């Protein structure tokens, strides 16, 4: 018996500690502990010098219900929803075409989706602002074509923020869809059409169900991070299209009310948990979110 446990120690316990120890420590100290602390802080107050005082209160949560904030939650969900919808409507046919390309160029088409993302995302969003601005290329073009007599204000609107969000997140829709569609067996599509199904029927009864895993993980990877991408609405929305992310950023960077910022973050955590639960219920694989 003693021999057995000694063997166990050498073949299981020691290597397990050596290999898993570092990552376990990292996850406890830099993922779990910070989130617990944020939760605790959301129940605390600040003193007159904006220091966090660890005394229990629900005041931050009652502030979350103010009409101004509720309007911003609605706006955030709307922007994230429209962004996800547009990403699906553009991303699905696009992924389908590039994933079903027979030529050797398929790898290149795939890389061309990723290459833009090697340029810093802020500077690309700023590129959009330059392009859409009153002296930008688009306004110059419109004026040269005689469509507009003077520059049109294209910035600082909900649509501008949605455009930036779609731009930031479309690869997160395309990549999982590409993987799912590439795996699709062409003979199934032929069988469906040979058996007399119209293309629309094949789409809804064969293609979509078989690629739904990619679609679901794409939607999760677009909708959730979209809620927190404060810099897109800062740069393109100019304060007119605030989202939950902007509210949190302000509490930590300028308003200095960390407990309120923490309470706002709890909303994002709850939304994330709900959506991930739905994703799992629909049969989504968690590992496909990270690869």
């Amino acid at each position, binding site marked *: 018996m003693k021999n057995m446990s000694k063997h166990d120690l050498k073949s299981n316990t020691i290597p*397990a500690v050596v290999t898993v120890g*570092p990552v376990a420590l*990292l996850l406890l100290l830099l993922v779990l502990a910070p989130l617990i602390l944020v939760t605790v802080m959301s129940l605390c107050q600040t003193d007159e010098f904006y220091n966090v005082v660890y005394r229990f209160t629900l005041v931050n949560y009652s502030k979350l219900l103010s009409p101004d904030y509720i309007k911003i939650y609605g706006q955030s969900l709307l922007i994230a929803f429209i962004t996800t919808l547009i990403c699906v409507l553009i991303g699905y046919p696009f992924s389908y075409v590039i994933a079903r390309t027979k030529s050797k160029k398929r790898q290149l088409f795939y890389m061309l989706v990723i290459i833009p993302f090697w340029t810093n995302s802020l500077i690309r969003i700023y*590129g959009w602002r*330059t392009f859409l601005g009153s002296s930008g290329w688009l306004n110059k073009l419109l004026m040269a074509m005689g469509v507009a007599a003077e520059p049109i204000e294209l910035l600082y609107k909900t649509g501008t923020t949605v455009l930036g969000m779609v731009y930031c997140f*479309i690869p997160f829709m395309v990549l999982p869809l590409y993987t799912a569609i590439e795996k699709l067996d062409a003979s199934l599509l032929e069988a469906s059409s040979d058996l007399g199904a119209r293309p629309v029927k094949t789409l809804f009864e064969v293609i979509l169900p078989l690629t739904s895993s990619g679609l679901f993980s794409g939607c999760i990877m677009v909708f959730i991070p979209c809620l927190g991408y404060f810099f897109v609405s800062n740069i393109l929305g100019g304060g007119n299209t605030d989202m939950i992310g902007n509210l*949190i950023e302000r509490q930590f960077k300028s308003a200095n009310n960390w407990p309120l910022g923490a309470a706002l973050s709890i909303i994002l955590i709850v939304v994330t948990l709900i959506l*991930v639960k739905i994703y799992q219920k629909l049969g989504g694989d968690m590992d496909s979110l990270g*690869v």
Partner: protein
Amino acid sequence: MRKAKKEKRIKRLSIVFCLLVYLFLFLPIFVVVSNSFNATTTKPYLSWKGFTFDWYVKLWDNSALLESFGNTIIIALASTILATIIGTLGAVGIYRYKFKGKGIINGLLYIPVVIPEIVIGIALLTIFTNANVPRGMLTLILSHVSFSVPYVIFNVRARLSGYDKSIEEASMDLGANRVVTFFEITLPVLMPGIAGGALLAFTLSIDDVIISYFVNGQTKTYPLKVMESIKSGVSPDVNALSTLVLVGTIVLVYITQSGILSGKHNKI
């Protein structure tokens, strides 16, 4: 006959559609690259004043910008190396050994992947402040490790699921000890997954804005420097640096990608 014509039309339509999507993806990059050649010298550097290479020369005098870029590279290299080592060991350990709390570790791994970055950012800021860790290079590196480790683990794990354990047993039967077996057998088999994870960790690190924004202290990374300059108008030398980085990464990834792809064929 009619069907063939229709198919041709659909094909042409889908090509046009894809070209429009690529145009959308590359449009702001054209703006960035063209502005790096803009001869304008007045803020906010938006109107076109003719073609010049000046900004590529002036770039080397902008020490604050170069320093921030250096910081970004140091943080990316350090966090990628750490995340790759911790993640590879962790993936192998979680896959192979029995221990309590495995479910908890697996669950925690998904948190940095699904929770919005801003929440991770403020949570790390809070813990560093409470633990009195001065914010700067160290906190930036630690934060980047914490959000990229899961990606390394998922990539290595994908590789492990098709892994034949018996070759390790064979190695041990032939007299190699556990450590030698790990380095000589396990590691080479997992290499494509490790390399893929490391590449992803590096990419995430150099482009990270949101988490760095909260934990940086006085240390500026390149994305944070861009963020700072956006208020007053991004000067063309920032565009010039971005253009150089883009060209550099295309070359670099072309080289490594061909290496990774050839490695994939040696699947055991």
